[in-house]
């Protein structure tokens, strides 16, 4: 497994309803499958899920489709076989964070949610600050973290933002990142 935590949009999906595309034979022939992937992406509608079978985690593709509003999730079935799931999210395009490893991110009810639990420190902090500075997360967004974001807090204060933990469990923390001064 990749270490990525399964996002909620993948819960209970039926694999028969998904569009599956195995790019491994195409890559073995030395052909770039991007055009064929994008052709299939255009056929998707509503909450369809596209599954790409690849010999590696296709991070550039995930970023490309992320920029078109797709959330993604990668699973390593074996060292040479990855399944990557894509689903179009209903609202705005997701922020692009090209310097960071890929992680699950989606819009839910107009709120950006980022699951940063698979990232090593200090990357979760960097992801939060990059979203704040890009303005793409709006004035309130939600992050899931494994660690208390202890060193993030002074950085938020300097930017006139603050954080509130809304849930704490063995699975980590759900933290709201909110613009403004703490009430």
């Amino acid at each position: 497994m990749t270490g990525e935590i399964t996002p909620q949009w993948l819960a209970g999906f039926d694999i028969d309803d998904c569009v599956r595309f195995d790019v491994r034979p195409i890559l073995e022939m030395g052909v770039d499958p991007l055009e064929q992937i994008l052709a299939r992406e255009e056929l998707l509608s509503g909450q369809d899920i596209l599954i790409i079978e690849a010999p590696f985690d296709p991070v550039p593709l995930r970023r490309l489709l992320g920029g078109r509003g797709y959330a993604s999730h990668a699973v390593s079935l074996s060292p040479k076989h990855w399944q990557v799931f894509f689903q179009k999210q209903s609202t705005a395009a997701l922020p692009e964070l090209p310097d960071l490893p890929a992680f699950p991110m989606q819009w839910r009810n107009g709120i950006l949610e980022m699951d940063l639990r698979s990232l090593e420190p200090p990357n979760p902090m960097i992801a939060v600050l990059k979203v704040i500075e890009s303005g793409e997360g709006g004035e309130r967004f939600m992050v899931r973290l494994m660690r208390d974001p202890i060193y993030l807090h002074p950085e938020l204060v300097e930017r006139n933002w603050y954080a509130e933990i809304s849930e704490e469990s063995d699975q980590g923390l759900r933290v709201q990142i909110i613009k403004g001064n703490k009430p």
Partner: protein
Amino acid sequence: MSGANFLSGAKGRLLPPSIPFRFFMAAVIFYLLFWAALFSNAGEITSYIIGGGPVLSMIHIATLGVLTMTVIGASLQLLSVATRKAFTDFWLCRLLSWIYIPGFMLLAFAMFESWYFGMLGGGIATAIGLVIFFYLIVNNIRGVQGMTAIMQHCWAAMVSLLGLVALGIMLIMDMEQGFMSDHLTIALSHLILAVFGFMSLIAMGFSYILVPMFALAPAPPENLGRLSIICNMLAIILILVGINSYLDWVSLVGVALALAGVGFYLYSMIRVYNARMRKRLGMPFLLIRVGWIMLALTIIWGALGMAGYWPRLGLETGHTLFAVLAIIGWLLTFLTGILQRIMPFLSSMHTSGSGGIPMLASSMADVRLLIINAIGHLGGLVAVSVGVILDMTMIIEIGAGAGFIGASALLCYLLNIIRHMIRNAP
């Protein structure tokens, strides 16, 4: 959970401020003492090779006094947050300070006076303190998932710590008993384990998390950190084998690996630096960057020495310059930069402004003190290096004086931070 509780979990993972700050305070006082001792004994350093006396004491004030105190304070505070395993044995952390700090003071004084039983007593107390530190760190990093490169650096540093402690005690005993056939080679092994095995590896390991955190940049690819630690560990092993078996070619292979290991480390740090979100990094990062340059120079100078180019300058001068580059240039400069950045940062986590929000680090103390510290330190480094190369005591004294002024400014800064922290305690 309310916002007020936001930091409660985090604070539960922070040590009481008195624990890290007692080590930082000791480090800064020894930093001041180091420059004072260098000023008083400037004429002796270029001719020193081995034995008790002020120079031996001075080297240990820098390494065990400044560098190790900083490493202990920072490790105890930062590791628990990174590994998510809190140090719950506060009494053991305090016991460490009660044994290590006075034990080291006795050791440094006894080395200065060449007083054997003082060295033995101080050395044993210092060793006990370091073994407690070893226990605390190993207990914390054992079983940690992820952060592989950082953990590998910590493990390698801890193994080196045990080795350097054992050799240190044996070297002290040998001064009276004379059982070692080659005291100089064992002393050199002790130096390599201390400066490169323990302090450099732990400084490099923490860099992979601290530098991105302070510069606000993504962490470097973990593969670079792994390559670096593998090369550096092999380098230390080969150099130790080479010097103890008198096989120069083995040591040379080790030095080549050290060049590669340091190269991977510096490359990953440059990547972090170039990808940073915080554009103005201030005085701490000036010192940190100079520290990196000095690390590269140290390894290159060491390689030249191994290849036999030092005699043109004089072997004793070559050794002294190597020690100056490694201890003052790389480690003291780098860790002073880290201290400058970490002290206000940690203190902000222990203060509470309006609404329970930590205070801004920049509002706590006068940053002009940091500028004086940086100028004094770097001026001291340059003058001492030039003084050693030209073998001119007066230039070394001027450098030590500049360093002393810089260290005084850092002490004032620390006192301001502590005063502020006490006043604004939540």
